[in-house]
């Protein structure tokens, strides 16, 4: 080992590198979350965190658990495949606490035209009306019952 006269400083440099690497590995071990790499190059616990977010739309199965009378009416009409919250809005809070959270009464003059206002881009077999000509701004539930919208016998017009 006499080929290098001043080999000592190389060993000191190597020691600094080794110490730096060790420090890096220790810090990295502390900072990288445990679940990183559990399923792939990402934090595995992120999946659980996203899955734990709260739900706003309860789902029609929950509604139907209590409102069997509405289900009965709806299942016979053309709106049978339309989910409750499609019109009534997100009501998971109502499902959790039916007494204190009450859904608002809907205005059918504004609600029904969301789907049924005439538009050339809609499929031709979808029932549509030009609401101004059809009812002159009158609320749709004057003649149609939203849960089963066929014309009501004895309804006006």
């Amino acid at each position, binding site marked *: 080992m006499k080929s290098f006269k001043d080999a000592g400083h190389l060993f000191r440099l190597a020691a600094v590198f080794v110490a730096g690497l060790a420090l890096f590995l220790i810090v990295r071990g502390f900072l990288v979350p445990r679940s990183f790499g559990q399923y792939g190059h990402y934090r595995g*616990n992120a999946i*659980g*965190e996203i899955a*734990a977010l709260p739900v706003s739309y309860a789902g029609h199965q929950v509604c139907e658990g209590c409102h069997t009378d509405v289900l009965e009416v709806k299942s016979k009409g053309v709106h049978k495949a339309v989910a409750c919250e499609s019109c009534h809005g997100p009501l998971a809070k109502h499902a959790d606490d039916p007494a204190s959270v009450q859904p608002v009464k809907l205005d059918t003059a504004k609600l029904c035209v969301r789907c049924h206002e005439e*538009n050339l*881009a809609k499929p031709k077999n979808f029932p549509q009306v030009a609401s101004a000509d059809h009812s002159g701004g009158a609320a749709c539930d004057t003649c149609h019952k939203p849960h089963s919208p066929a014309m009501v016998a004895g309804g006006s017009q």
Partner: protein
Amino acid sequence: MNITRRQLLILLPAAAVAWESIIAGTPEASPNYNMTDHWWGMLMDVTKCIGCGSCVRACQLENQVPDGYFRTWIERYHVSDWEMEYPKVDSPDGGKTGFPPAREDGGKNFFVPKLCNHCVESPCTQVCPVGATFVSPDGVVLVDQKYCLGCRYCVQACPYGCRFINPATNTANKCTLCYHRITKGLTTACCEVCPTGTRQLADLKNPNDPIHAFLKTHSVQVLKPQMATRSKCFYYGLDGSVR
């Protein structure tokens, strides 16, 4: 502040335990849900879409999407009867409040709902420099909100324009396929409220899912197949002019 040796010896392990819990994060939230049993996608029957915007509203309410940003939206196409290369597309406020009357100068008009395609070979997850976005073991493209730097690489990489930077958090945001719902046995908010059945959540690993019968008997298409992203959003009745 003076700390005795005794106090320090008590404090240090307590701090270590606290740090450990921060590093470890929260555990799995849906214990009855097994990720390896599912492979999620969606079916869009565009022949049924009426452009009512229910899906857009439901998505915003379910996922607290800020106004002017969209995880899902509806486009309306106007195509001349022969000039497929130059469709005229509008999507006022993402179709959230419906659409004004369509053009009547010949050609055809139709709606196309869009959302994240939950690609198997997703370009957006491949470009993330920090591992903040990924395809989950059940085939959903998700963003880790705690890890995202907001560098916007993924926003640029998505060929479908499905990502945005949430101005409230400055992190990338996108459709999670309502991961918090589908892991609880519910369908997505958009599929739940779709009044015509245009949107149907599909579990491609479930042999009893009606998607399989549909795919066997119908001609379906994915958006931008030339991008080879292996999209899992299947469109039925899609016009060739749709981009």
